[in-house]
């Protein structure tokens, strides 16, 4: 059987499975980015807080999750998470095993890592917002929520977009490690196809090419978003 047949969409082709796995990789990465965004925002707020314990907790979180090996965190969440959930179940008189699904465990683990990086991105973006604008808003009587909605959040998003693009690419590559949970994402599917057909180079090259497609497209999307946001800010500044 030729290599074209093997990676095609025919009866013996694995093209369909690889595309499905590519979708799974995107889904895990997107879910982890959302989890990371929520965590990152909270941790960034803690690191910018006037409270010393909050700052200490924020620093501890980013130090641990940026410093520990990604694979270790995935194992801890996948196995430790299941044991924790099972323990809670036992406490509630449920005798069976309760496991975290592979997808959820992977998304949470990569989300925890992503959150540590996003926290630094948001913190930097917040510090880039002009203090003068905030003072002006305060002086004309804008409340905290209004300042947040009209000035802080839009500018933080604008300043954080380039950093978030990098975090997305990191998470996309970290998602390959989720294969250890048995989740059929792109890396695991390439490994399975290679082991099952004994065509190792073929499927590792195809897997690599598909990752390259994902990272290149992601890069384009983030560049486009950055240009759009920058343009809308320029237009906004011109309006009196």
């Amino acid at each position, binding site marked *: 059987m030729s290599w074209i047949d093997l990676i095609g969409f025919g009866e013996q082709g694995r093209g369909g499975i690889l595309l499905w796995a590519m979708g799974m990789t995107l889904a895990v990465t997107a879910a982890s980015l959302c989890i990371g965004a929520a965590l990152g925002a909270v941790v960034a707020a803690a690191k910018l807080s006037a409270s010393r314990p909050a700052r200490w907790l924020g620093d501890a979180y980013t130090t641990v999750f940026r410093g520990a090996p990604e694979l270790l965190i995935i194992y801890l969440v996948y196995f430790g998470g299941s044991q924790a959930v099972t323990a809670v179940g036992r406490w509630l008189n449920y005798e069976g*095993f309760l496991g975290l699904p592979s997808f959820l465990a992977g998304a949470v683990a990569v989300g925890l890592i992503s959150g540590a990086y996003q926290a630094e991105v948001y913190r930097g973006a917040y510090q880039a917002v002009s203090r003068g604008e905030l003072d002006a808003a305060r002086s004309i009587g804008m409340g905290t929520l209004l300042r947040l909605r009209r000035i802080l959040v839009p500018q933080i998003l604008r300043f954080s977009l380039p950093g978030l693009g990098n975090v997305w690419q990191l998470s996309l590559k970290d998602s390959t490690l989720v294969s250890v949970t048995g989740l059929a994402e792109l890396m695991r599917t390439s*490994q399975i196809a*290679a082991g099952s057909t004994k065509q190792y180079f073929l499927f590792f090259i195809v897997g690599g090419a598909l990752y390259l497609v994902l990272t290149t497209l992601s890069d384009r999307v983030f560049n486009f978003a950055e240009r759009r946001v920058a343009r809308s800010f320029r237009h906004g500044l011109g309006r009196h």
Partner: protein
Amino acid sequence: MSIRNLVAASALFAALAAPASAKEWTEVTIALEGAYAPWNLTDANGKIVGFEPDLTEYLCAHAKLKCTLISQDWDGMITALNAGKFDVIMDALSITPERKEVIDFTVPYAATPAVFAAPKDGELANLAGTGSVIKLADTSDGAEAIAPLKTALTGKTIGIQAATVYAKFIYDNFKDVAEIKEYKTSAERDLDLSAGRIDAGFDDATYFLGAFESADNAGLAFTGPEIAGPIWGEGEGLGIRKSDPELKALFDEAIKAAVADGTVKKLSEKWLKVDVTP
């Protein structure tokens, strides 16, 4: 009678009167690697096929169980079993004393020899004893039989899949004379072996038979004697949690039937090209 004594007596009575609640198994999730051809592999439709999935069909029908096969990474498979991710491991898992400390095993459904593989045209091709079988009870028992292999492999690099019985054997016998390189999967080791980055690989003979059929591995062949016997434990069995003796009993009975009626022989000859009946 004091309240404390009354409570204690009631508890004792309840414990004696209540029958031990044996779990009734109807559905079982079985984990395989899905990439260890020809024992188990994944076809183009994502279905797990091979010797073990075919045998599973028989075992589950015999035990009247509804079985679901899932693909799981070899790394952490035993941990995942104990964490309740699935109920059974079926992945050419050798029964060893070390593993028996953490999980239970069924009776073996296969027993296979292990062997070295090396490039056909390399200096390790056709080592003394190629084509013969030596039976070893344990490492110390095999010192004399392994001596020619140790001499031949002195200063060489041997590739093995991590966390396998074969890895333990190689470390026990060759760490003083050869460099040992571990791999996450056997397939990755084969790539390095074909590329000449390592000098020899050591694995299950049936695995290598399947691997040699690939164009990538066309230049590889067995070298040295096949090593069989109790050194690999009792053979390959299903891995089951220690807390599930009822499930073990169901599969024990089914495996014994599969061995007795020739199902293991028939399926192993179909997939592995040799009879691996224990």
